[in-house]
């Protein structure tokens, strides 16, 4: 169980001002994530969950409030810790470098940072890839792989980077439902190996409950925490849990909250900003 990556989000607000239109993306949002916890934030499009992720990752600044990690300030108004290897992001549309081989992609973090010599990094990478069923593709380019395979490679890359917090921005959104459910099991397998702190955002409630230790439901813009649900399903989890009684109860608990927000978002025609 990881001891690092505990995040405290305190009264964070984010206001955008693109072309003079004042947009409040986040308003007074507070959240605590324990080290090693798998936290999933669910909310409709435009609720600000991606904005929050970007702020934690260091790609964006906040306008009010504070976030700290393991006791030291991560970001505050006017201050921002640049993105780094401690908070590794897995992007929605994938960001594997298409012009490099799988092996290079996966090992570049530790090697370029000087943390591991190339040979050792490659050995580790091969082992991890084999562990997720991707042995033998190291020399190929991302363009040759299926989208499911690419996502798995990207997860391996993220883990090889040994971050304190793993930030996942709706990583399975572009996959078809069947591939997605298999990816969930893969992700949990990898999570179980290292138990890093995970911050995962999605709009899919089922995905959220299946993966999380805690599910955080967000309101539509301006984003705030609406409800927090502790998911006490035992680990390791597999797809059969989806039809269990406890799962059904948890879903019922969360569904009303999120459906209400979904309806609100639908009516106001919110579009994604970030």
């Amino acid at each position, binding site marked *: 169980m990881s001891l690092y990556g505990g995040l405290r989000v305190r009264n964070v607000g984010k206001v955008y001002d693109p072309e003079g239109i004042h947009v409040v993306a986040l308003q007074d949002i507070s959240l605590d994530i324990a080290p090693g916890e798998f936290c999933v934030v669910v909310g409709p499009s435009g609720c600000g969950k991606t904005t929050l992720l970007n702020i934690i990752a260091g790609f964006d600044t906040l306008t009010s409030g504070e976030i700290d990690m393991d006791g030291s300030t991560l970001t505050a108004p006017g201050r921002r810790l640049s993105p780094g290897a401690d908070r590794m992001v897995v992007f929605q549309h994938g960001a594997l470098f298409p012009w490099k081989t799988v092996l290079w992609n996966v090992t*570049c*973090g530790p090697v370029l*940072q000087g943390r591991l010599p190339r040979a050792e990094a490659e050995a580790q990478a091969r082992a991890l890839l084999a562990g997720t069923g991707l042995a033998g593709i190291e020399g190929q380019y991302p*363009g*040759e792989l299926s989208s499911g395979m690419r996502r798995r490679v990207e997860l391996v890359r993220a883990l090889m980077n040994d*971050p304190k917090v793993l930030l996942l921005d709706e990583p399975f959104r572009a996959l078809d439902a069947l591939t997605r459910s298999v990816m969930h099991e893969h992700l949990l397998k990898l999570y179980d190996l290292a138990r890093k702190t995970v911050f995962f955002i999605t709009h899919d409630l089922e995905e959220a409950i299946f993966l999380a230790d805690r599910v955080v439901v967000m309101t539509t813009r301006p984003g705030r925490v609406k409800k927090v649900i502790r998911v006490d399903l035992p680990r390791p989890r597999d797809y059969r849990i989806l039809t269990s009684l406890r799962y059904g109860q948890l879903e019922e608990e969360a569904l009303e909250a999120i459906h209400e927000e979904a309806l609100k978002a639908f009516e106001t025609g919110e579009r994604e900003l970030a």
Partner: protein
Amino acid sequence: MTEKNSGGELRWIRGPRPYLLLAGFAIFLAAWHLATAVLKVPVFSKIPPPAVVLREWFNPEPFFGVSVYTSLYYSHIAYSVYRAYTAFALAVLLGVPLGILIGWNRTFKEYAFPLVEIFRPIPPLSWVPLAILMLPGTEPPVIFVTFIAAFFATVLNTLLGVQSIDRSYFRAAQCLGFSRRDMLLHVVIPGAMPHVFTGLQIAMGLSWVALVAGEMIAGKRGLGYMIYDAYSMVQIPTIIMGMLTLGFLGFFSSALVRFLGRRLMAWRSY
């Protein structure tokens, strides 16, 4: 995902395309022949029929001194090729780094880009008089004018290439702990390559355009000069030969750049 409405490469030979191609050329040549040899349309009275051009082009003892069999023809070609490719190489060597710098470094861009944009609209050919005055000899002015044409196109396309790199790649690189140098080598340069090569194809085409003009005005050899010289001595078949040779060389050069691009970016064919 858009689909192009043309046939697949492998089915090309078996499809109607090659036959239409030949038919098209045949129609063009027939029309040319008709207008000049048969109907003798007055407007085209000075233009020789295709047969005359071809006869001269492949004549061991050409009337006007230039044909596939004369070394003069190849000498002209050699000069033109040397100038075009030298200017192109210079444009690439100077233009790509400049484009990358402008595209990547916001501060540098703010200082340098306005200057570039002021000089860019000035047609390359209008540099000819100034080039002759500034640079010694006969070769440098011609190469300089050609260089200008290729240079700005290269800078612009390289710049666009850098700017077109998805923000996610930069962010991922930051998360992976890349230094500025790592970013340049492993993200910026490879990421911009597709656009850069498109730009290089365009630049190559523009080089030829500028080169011809330069040669016509200032050169002593080369295809542009050959055309101009033939014109002044009313050797029309030679003019047409020169034009078609230029067309072919231009097309071939662009194809060469395209081919090199495909080789260097093997990752793209998937």
